[in-house]
């Protein structure tokens, strides 16, 4: 039977197993919306701004192991979505975005709501397609999901002109696709793996540094086995948190600009470094020149060859999927029975414990004003460390990363690469849809939350009982911190004046709002909020305005040149 392009689009999504699509209608996608209306396999979540549709799909994808899915109209629908797409791209999140386009005959005519979607999004997608013929539609959508979810994941966009949604053809959803130009390497080279293990077992001061790749590749179990077997110290990037359990004694905390003293010192002074699914970001190794003052061998496992030897020269590159490679490493270790140098390792741990004793995350626990760190610690306690925590961007993000000790992957959802304010609330909505049985918390700041505050309305519509922890310091705190440290205390435009009354604002959206001003009220407020299982509760914590995030590696400085409290 012949179907229209619009029917085919929706059928493809359903056949691909998409349960939620996040979107916003408009002229170019009306036929697709009409088909969404006529079926109930794919549920549509109507956001209040296209940026939020993408963030919500992104949060959904990060929380479960499935790709997110988005539907927006041409022109402004697309341009609004671009920030979300770039956010997903920078953090390698699997996602398929379907966009409407003006009819094929109108393309290039400056038609109403026309933008060059393929051109605008090209630098921030893994790949994109313009479907000019309805007969290519089903295969293209299949390819989009295939590309988005394999190799290094990423967003893939499919642009569909309106006339293609009306045209008819036979429908068949391909069971699989193969592309001669796209074949990610998954299995690591056995010889390289052997070389890596030899280096590691001979190391005097080994260090394991893992990133978002371990979370994306669902390899935490294999990682834990590997690290525990060797007894090596392990650190995670901001994107990798939860990849290794934070409460394990081998865990060193996060590394990088706001990483722990012990993680950064160990990173700087190790003699063999194993990097797994991490990309030596500038927020992670600081000034590369300083990083290379110390001599060390580097082993790098990554599914994307271009991540390897990009910022840092690598001695043993291993291209492959984290889970495949770690399994092979575990297998070879078991088979050979190779053991690390025990005496050297003991001395190394003695050094590490000295660094750890510096207690770099300490803060004033008896302060008369609410300390943001304390709120996160209490949040951890009250949620049993088992919530899905999303965040926005700023100081609150760093405190959440440092103090909510993530023990499991896919519990920490934040924008690391692009650092997109406005991400937290819609991402929480998506994460909740992926795991409606879980407690979902959005840790945010009074500036960030206002960038997608309209999504409180979406949350009302779908009864999403998200708990919002607003660390309200009346400042763009992260900006204020830089101005204090590096711009002579000139707080240019970082004070958040004329803030709304968040309690009333939340109430006007039909939710529950709370304002907490004293340290002794923090715990009670959190308990009350989390006891309201079915309500979205916005907790507005009035926190210390002057608090800064420590440790801090200033821009251009080396990892061991931290500012400490």
């Amino acid at each position, binding site marked *: 039977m012949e179907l229209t392009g619009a029917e085919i689009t929706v059928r493809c999504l359903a056949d691909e197993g998409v349960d939620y699509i996040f979107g916003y209608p408009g002229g170019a996608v009306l036929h697709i919306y009409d088909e969404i209306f006529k079926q109930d396999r794919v549920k549509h979540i109507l956001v209040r701004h296209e940026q939020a549709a993408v963030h919500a799909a992104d949060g959904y994808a990060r929380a479960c192991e499935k790709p997110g899915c988005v539907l927006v109209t041409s022109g402004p629908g697309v341009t609004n979505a671009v920030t979300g797409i770039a956010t997903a791209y920078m953090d390698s999140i699997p996602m398929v975005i379907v966009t409407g386009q003006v009819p094929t005959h109108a393309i290039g005519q400056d038609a109403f709501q026309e933008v060059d979607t393929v051109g605008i999004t090209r*630098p921030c997608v893994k790949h994109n397609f313009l479907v000019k013929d309805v007969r290519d539609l089903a295969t293209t959508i299949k390819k989009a999901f295939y*590309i988005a979810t394999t190799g290094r994941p990423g967003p893939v966009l499919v642009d569909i002109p309106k006339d293609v949604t009306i045209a008819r053809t036979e429908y068949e959803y391909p069971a699989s696709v193969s592309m*001669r*130009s*796209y074949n990610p390497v998954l299995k690591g080279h056995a010889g390289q793996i052997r070389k890596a293990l030899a280096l590691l077992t001979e190391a005097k001061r080994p260090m394991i540094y893992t990133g978002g790749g371990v979370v994306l590749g669902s390899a935490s179990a294999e990682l834990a086995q590997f690290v525990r077997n060797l007894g090596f110290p392990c650190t995670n990037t901001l994107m990798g948190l939860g990849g290794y359990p934070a409460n394990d004694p081998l865990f060193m905390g996060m590394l990088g600009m706001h990483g722990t003293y012990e993680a950064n010192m160990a990173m700087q002074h190790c003699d063999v470094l194993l990097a797994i699914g991490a990309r030596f970001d500038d927020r992670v190794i600081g000034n590369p020149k300083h990083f290379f003052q110390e001599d060390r061998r580097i082993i790098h496992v990554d599914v994307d060859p*271009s991540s390897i*030897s990009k910022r840092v*020269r690598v001695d043993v590159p291993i291209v492959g999927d984290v889970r495949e490679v770690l399994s092979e490493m575990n297998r070879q270790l078991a088979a050979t029975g190779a053991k690390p140098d025990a005496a050297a390792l003991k001395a190394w741990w003695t050094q590490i414990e000295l660094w750890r004793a510096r207690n770099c995350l300490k803060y004033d626990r008896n302060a008369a004003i609410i300390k943001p760190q304390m709120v996160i610690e209490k949040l951890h306690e009250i949620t049993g460390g088992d919530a899905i925590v999303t965040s926005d961007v700023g100081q609150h993000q760093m405190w959440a990363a440092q103090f909510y000790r993530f023990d499991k992957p896919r519990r920490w959802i934040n924008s690391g690469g692009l650092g997109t304010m406005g991400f937290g609330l819609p991402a929480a909505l998506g994460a909740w849809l992926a795991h409606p049985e879980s407690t979902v918390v959005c840790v945010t700041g009074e500036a960030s939350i206002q960038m997608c505050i309209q999504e409180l309305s979406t949350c009302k519509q779908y009864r999403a009982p998200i708990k919002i922890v607003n660390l309200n310091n009346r400042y763009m705190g992260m900006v204020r911190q830089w101005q204090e440290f590096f711009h002579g205390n000139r707080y240019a435009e970082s004070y958040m004046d004329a803030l709304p009354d968040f309690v009333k604002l939340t109430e006007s959206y039909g939710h529950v709002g709370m304002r907490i001003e004293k340290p002794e009220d923090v715990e009670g407020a959190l308990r009350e909020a989390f006891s309201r299982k079915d309500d979205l509760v916005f907790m507005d914590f009035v926190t210390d305005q002057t608090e800064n995030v420590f440790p801090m590696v200033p821009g251009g400085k080396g990892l061991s040149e931290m500012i400490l409290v």
Partner: protein
Amino acid sequence: MRHIISLLLENESGALSRVAGLFSARGYNIESLTVAPTEDATLSRMTIVTTGSDDVIEQITKQLNKLVDVVKVVDLSEGEHIERELMLVKVRASGKDREEMKRMADIFRGRIIDVTDKSYTIELTGTGQKLDAFLDALEDGAVLETVRTGASGIGRGERILKV
């Protein structure tokens, strides 16, 4: 270092802009870029001449390979290869210079493909260096217009780039 990189890419609309966009977005140099369809209508062949340190060239080949439309990439400069560029040059050719210009074209194995009373249009192929040498050999003011294709390259001997 100067490298000459050859690629096969899907003959899709937009494939060229993905390659060009990659170079500009990542700040890589392009000295020249040529592209045309191949005997296989689904594929185009592109030759890019670029410069950069070994690290940069390694990133360029990796990033090119990562583009979904790119089927194959080789850095021709890693092995023996042949490189040719075509130039059309319109030169002043009147009076006593006319004979001299014909002689120069002959020396460089150029062909005169268009003639007016006052000018010749010369077709010349060779490496970029040879074309430069020809232009350098002409008298100041002799050149009215030049158009160059940029280099095309192919491996020497049995080496072939194929899917």
